[in-house]
């Protein structure tokens, strides 16, 4: 059992958890994730580790409640526990002194982007962090990002805060104004695809943190496979970060919808547990 030391709301449907997982904290590097099970009958879901403290053994997770498992998770409070936390999994981000780096985070993708921003700043890069949300309330981690020393540009789709429009608009403007050595993107698949499209014409190296459906997270099942440059890769062990210009985002988007109907049913059950089907022994 992995104790939740602190749980706080950070935006609509988004919660931050500080969880005791000393072994994960000790080995964690930016870009890695954990596989979590909320309870003994729960599914295994991947969540990015946003921060880790070796001294306290705590890791930080940001969770957007979108379906049954993430919403159940977001019902947990300080003092509750997660049944399983395995990791840190995946390859760490390739952090180097690139020069100028732009890190784009959309929605809860900002939580995935945050540790990358921090690591890039620590490696001596000039880092421009572009974060977006549907409206003001959906913008998370702004002050934390600023505290890293990165330049932070916030955009909202509805213009209720920061620059109006999509993160990709701001990205295009940034690329036009300043030479950029590398771009990192984390967020919804359409956003990452759009980022890749913006950076491709000028050949700016672009890394996307992919979010396929996972089961074990150890390379055992192949469920997380993605197509990168015509080659099948297992995102949990070969990734989750890949060259965004080579990723088949349409395939990823389709595969992420594979269990759509099932997920809807489970999600509805969370509202009304009485509609649950009796299990056979």
């Amino acid at each position, binding site marked *: 059992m992995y104790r939740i030391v602190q749980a706080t709301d950070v935006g609509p449907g988004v919660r931050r958890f500080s969880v005791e997982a000393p*072994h*994960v904290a000790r*080995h964690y590097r930016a870009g890695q994730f954990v*596989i979590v*099970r909320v309870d003994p*009958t*729960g*599914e*295994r879901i991947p969540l990015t580790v946003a921060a880790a403290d070796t001294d306290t053994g705590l890791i930080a997770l940001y969770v957007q409640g979108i379906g*049954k*498992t993430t919403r159940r998770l977001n019902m947990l409070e300080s003092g509750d526990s997660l*049944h*399983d*936390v*395995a*990791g*840190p*999994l995946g390859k760490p981000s390739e952090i180097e002194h690139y020069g100028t780096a732009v890190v784009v985070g959309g929605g809860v993708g900002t939580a995935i982007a945050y540790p990358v921003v921090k690591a890039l700043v620590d490696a001596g890069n000039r880092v421009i962090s572009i974060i977006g949300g549907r409206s003001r309330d959906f913008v998370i981690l702004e002050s934390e990002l600023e505290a890293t020393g990165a330049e932070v540009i916030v955009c909202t789709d509805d213009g209720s805060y920061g620059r109006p429009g999509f993160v990709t608009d701001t990205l295009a403007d940034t690329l036009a104004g300043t030479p950029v050595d590398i771009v990192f993107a984390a967020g919804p698949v359409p956003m990452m695809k759009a980022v890749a499209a913006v950076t491709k014409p000028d050949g700016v190296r672009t890394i996307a943190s992919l979010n396929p459906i996972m*089961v*074990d997270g*150890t*390379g*055992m*099942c*192949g*469920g997380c*496979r*993605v*197509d990168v440059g015509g080659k*099948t890769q297992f995102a949990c*062990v070969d990734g989750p970060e890949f060259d965004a210009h080579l990723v088949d985002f349409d*395939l990823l988007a*389709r*595969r992420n*919808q*594979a*269990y759509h*109907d*099932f*997920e809807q049913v*489970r999600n509805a059950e969370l509202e009304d547990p009485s509609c*649950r*089907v*009796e*299990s*056979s022994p």
Partner: protein
Amino acid sequence: MSAPLTKKERMKLDRIDMPERDAVERAGSFEEVNLGLTAKMAQLEAMRCLECKRPKCIDGCPVGIQIDEFIRLVAEGSVAEAAEVIQRDNLLPAICGRVCPQENQCEGTCVLAKKERPIAIGHLERYVADYVRTEGLHQVAEMPRPTGKAIAVIGSGPAGLACAGDLIQSGHAVTVFEALHEPGGVLVYGIPEFRLPKEIVQTEIAGLETLGVVFEMNAVVGRTHTLEELLAEFDAVFIGVGAGLPRFLGVPGENLIGVYSANEFLTRVNLMKAYLNDADTPVLDVTGKRIVVFGGGNTAMDAARTALRMGAADVRILYRRTEAEMPARREEVRHAREEGIAFDFLVSPTQLSGEDGLLRRVSLQRMELGEPDETGRRRPQPIEGATTEVEADLAVVAIGNGPNPLLLSTVPDLERTKWGTIAVDEATGRTSIPGVFAGGDIVTGGATVILAMGAGRRAAASVENWLDTGVWELPPSEEESVESA
């Protein structure tokens, strides 16, 4: 008891069939297919044994169980004593009795195999193990004095469990590190409930826990802990991480929705319990659908029969050789057939095609058998121009697993074979790193439960030797010493 039967009388008895759940009923149920022998049946079957002076059956058992002895005890009705005999060589008899490919092992070498009616050694072993388990007669081993030594076992499949079992009984402290949330390896995530009830695996694991083995779950060695750390903390390390990297076909369309590796399909259904209605882990709905499974081993049979139980309308196994070359246990093939699974031999997929990203069709190349390959099986080769197509909503790829690089890639000094498996001294499980032992599928490539278990036990003995002597280098083998002389 009546006078013992003569050899001639014994030869006249018929092999007792294992009672089975009815084929129609079981095709819709995850309950175990084989129902187990009754005491009477077991005794009758045991009485058929000729008590050979040189029991050939033992030659066929990879761990050398004293088969004639335990069978004689069953015939006498001394089941608990029979269990003790088995337990000397096999720590997991309830499992091996169910899943060993007996026809290639003990039953294959039994003298009565020539007459197509070998003693049902597997069924008897299972009977004995189940008897002591359900009667609660499990021997509680006397705990030896603690040695103060600590051993780390990586992976909780049969290799790791066997290694842990032997080492704890020698008084060492043993911690098993397992990447998943449940121990058992393929026994829990791969082999389905209807063939190996999970309760049996859990009983074995609970037994080890009672003896003091510590299980650390969610411990992905190479990530959560490094091998280096374990070596610093423990006196020896055993690696039994299995061969858990699924092979795919390498044909176009393999990433369509509806194409699963057998590992993924079986893990979703078994480990994540998708066969129960209230599990949170989804599996693609196969109700009324057409399923194809590529492969001819136990994994293929398990995937096909699982799909059937999940409600599939039509399940076919597509294998590129013929029935004779199929590596699956014969009993599983028979069961699969009886349940209504179709087999197409000498076909190999060339393309998977779909609509809207969902699998719909499989293009197949017809094959014929050519010259034998290095394994001695005749190699399938395409018949030019002979192609065909089948419709399919789900395809499960069960063509084997390679060594998972997750841990190995973090330990460059650990010597590997050209197949990527860990190179060891076979008799001792010693690797190229002092203090590190390995066994099971990560050494042999995908093999069997009993071989993995045997390797775990050999390594345990070798760990003892290393802890006693502190000598890592093995004495040179005779050939080498002759050469160097």
